[in-house]
């Protein structure tokens, strides 16, 4: 994927992949940008230990200026989104980042409006499988763990739908 292999991460995939012990999978990207508000929702709220992110060189923190964010939110009418989600979209737009990692359907829609490809936790796992990070059996196990173990809200049938696509 080369130089454009950069993503911005919303809180969802960080939390959900951490909860199933797959935080290392973020290194399928060359760089993953974490806006300050997402850091606050995950690390500062003690839902993910800071060391799990700082020990991986792929992660990079981004500070978003308040005034510029406010203007951006108004321009695109993103007022209903949470602060972390707004900052993710802002960073994508400002830095021309092609991927936004999010498990939120409203944020997926917003990302598409900006021409950014949204990818959810489930997509990250399937990508890891495609890149040879684990076997089909392990991929299925991880996908089911997303539903059974992580706090991601996803119905069992959606997971099985994904598994059927892999088989």
């Amino acid at each position, binding site marked *: 994927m080369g130089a454009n292999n950069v993503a911005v991460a919303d809180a969802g995939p960080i939390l959900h992949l951490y909860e199933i012990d797959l935080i290392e999978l973020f290194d399928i990207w060359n760089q993953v940008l974490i806006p300050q508000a997402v850091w606050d929702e995950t690390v500062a709220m003690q839902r993910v230990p800071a060391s799990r992110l700082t020990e991986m060189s792929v992660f990079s923190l981004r500070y978003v200026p308040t005034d510029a964010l406010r203007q951006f939110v108004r321009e695109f009418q993103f007022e209903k989104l949470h602060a972390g989600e707004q900052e993710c979209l802002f960073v994508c737009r400002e830095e021309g980042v092609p991927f936004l990692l999010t498990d939120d*359907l409203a944020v997926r829609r917003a990302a598409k409006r900006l021409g950014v490809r949204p990818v959810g936790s489930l*997509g990250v796992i399937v990508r890891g499988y495609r890149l040879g990070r684990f076997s089909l059996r392990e991929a299925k196990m991880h996908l089911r763990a997303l539903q059974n173990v992580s706090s991601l809200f996803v119905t069992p049938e959606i997971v099985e739908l994904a598994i059927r696509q892999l088989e």
Partner: protein
Amino acid sequence: MHLDMMSVANYLSSLVQMTDQKEEYILAQALEIGLRQLWREEVLARYLRGELSREEAIEQVGITWVALADEQAEAVLEDIHWALTT
């Protein structure tokens, strides 16, 4: 303690304390809510497998859940297509 880390027994005793309701009442509520959720998941599963029409699914669990299932399924298929083909 984080809620996710709690055992079923801990959930029960905590809910009794937090709500000031009797254990039997909370267990009855849990059974009802759990059964409703299992029913909904089964209906949506049958819908996503093509065993139920959209109209039938909406009739049984409501448009909100069916629309959510549609959007989730679309998102997952998009992600998988990207993950496997690019």
